[in-house]
């Protein structure tokens, strides 16, 4: 059986295809403000709103867990996650090296601790006949 093609359910949020996927953010060349997902304008209220000031960057894929929870009930559509029946899964807020705090699904529900180091990866949400749909996830290291 050949592996199905993996595609992000929403394009443009992380580099893909890639051996080492990274989140795609934006950075203001004037003041350094980083935003994810990438934004058209610098979010800093004291900075100019000029499209050309904002460049696309890839975030480092290391972070520290700021907080987490385990979702015990299936969120309603349009969120979709397998395997079925629903399995509880963890969500966290992760501080990246750029000073950004980013949400994401965690690859494990066990032994989660505030302050632990995580690495960005990707994981399957669900699949259909041809494709597997993936999102970014944070993996404890």
């Amino acid at each position, binding site marked *: 059986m050949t592996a199905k093609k993996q595609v992000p359910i929403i394009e443009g949020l992380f580099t893909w295809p890639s051996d080492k996927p990274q989140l795609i953010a934006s950075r203001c060349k004037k003041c350094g403000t980083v935003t994810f997902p990438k934004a058209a304008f610098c979010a800093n209220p004291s900075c100019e709103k000029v499209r050309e000031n904002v460049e696309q960057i890839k975030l480092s894929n290391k972070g520290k867990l700021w907080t987490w929870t385990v*979702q015990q009930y299936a969120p309603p559509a349009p969120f979709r996650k397998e395997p079925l029946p629903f399995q509880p899964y963890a969500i966290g807020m992760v501080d990246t090296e750029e000073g950004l705090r980013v949400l994401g699904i965690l690859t494990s529900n066990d032994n989660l601790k505030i302050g632990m180091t995580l690495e960005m990866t990707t994981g399957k949400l669900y699949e259909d006949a041809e494709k597997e749909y993936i999102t970014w996830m944070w993996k404890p290291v």
Partner: protein
Amino acid sequence: MKKFRDVAIVGVGLHPWGVFPDRSMPEMAVEAISEALADAKMEWREIQSMVAGTYLWVSQREGMFGILSGTAISAAMGGIGIPITSCANACATGGAIFREAYLAVASGLYDTAIAVAADRSAGGFFRPQSQDPQFDLDYIRYVMTGETNPAYWAMECQRRMHDLGTTEDDLAMVKVITSKIAPLNPKTRYKKAFTKQQVLESPMVCAPLHLMEICATSDGAGAIIVCAADKAKKYTKKPVLVEAAVIGSPTFGDHTIPLTYLSAYPRPGVGILTESRNAIAAAYKMSGRKPEDIDVIELPDNSSWHYFAYLDCMLQAKDGEAEKLLRSGKVDPIDGELPVCPSGGLGACGEAVVAQGLFQIYELVKQLRGEAGERQVKNNPKVALAQTYGYAGNNAACILSKAW
């Protein structure tokens, strides 16, 4: 801040909170308005300006009635040609429209105004309404992470436990203490008081929050009538002065990620819940009041975490003070020195999203007038404070006092 003329609340009305599948939002609003008009002994034609709360989950239920709730409600009341606006500030909408009604009168443009909101939300978890994968951050966040509202609350709660030592017992005791009122308030959806054991044995929704530590969604409607304070005696012997009616939004660099968004960029010196801290600070400034002047509080206990986080915020106390207040009995909803949530709170009502702020104001008016019956607070309150926060970084707060 320029001082406008004084404004008083002269009438309040509330459709009960609950599940009403056979009633439309405008119908529920008409009942709330009718009760408020009767309370003020006022005719509908005496209302000069109106602002309505816009239902958020428009594509799921009632279509245009959600988007144009103001005009739909006025059509149901019978059109009288007054100015109407519809407003959406998420769960802070009730407080936001109250502020608009206040401003309409405080500015001198009108002598009377009404804030009205109805909501049909009794359908469980909220979800994004568009399918736009490019610009709708709510949709993107939800599809990519599955983060529900309770998951957000649970993460904030987990962090508070880590930083401040909040315990599982503390979280459960919020429900025990606020639900004491539940059987006493005829307007709430739930009428049951819970024990600590029942709370802790209820299913885990998102660790560390149990089902009984999270509020349900609800249907409901409310209406508040304000008028120029110097004309209030025409309508009521017990006008309630609006000392402050404010709204707030977040400050850049807030340490939390507001629901809807996927990331935050915390900056030194900027705290958490800045939309709420900004609104509360503005309310104290506008009224000239201090936290120690407040006699009774309604806060948004969407979860046990909210109760603690927003009590700290509303009292401008050191983070972690709220747990001590709860343990001490000082904030008991009836007997406390500073009663909190004498309505039973969101735990007992369930949240009718855009109308919730009006539920709080209704309760505080009843408490100040001494008309709350079995749930009347015992400390003879003169000054009251309410606040609600809303999705994506909204907040509304008000300070009310006796004007007789």
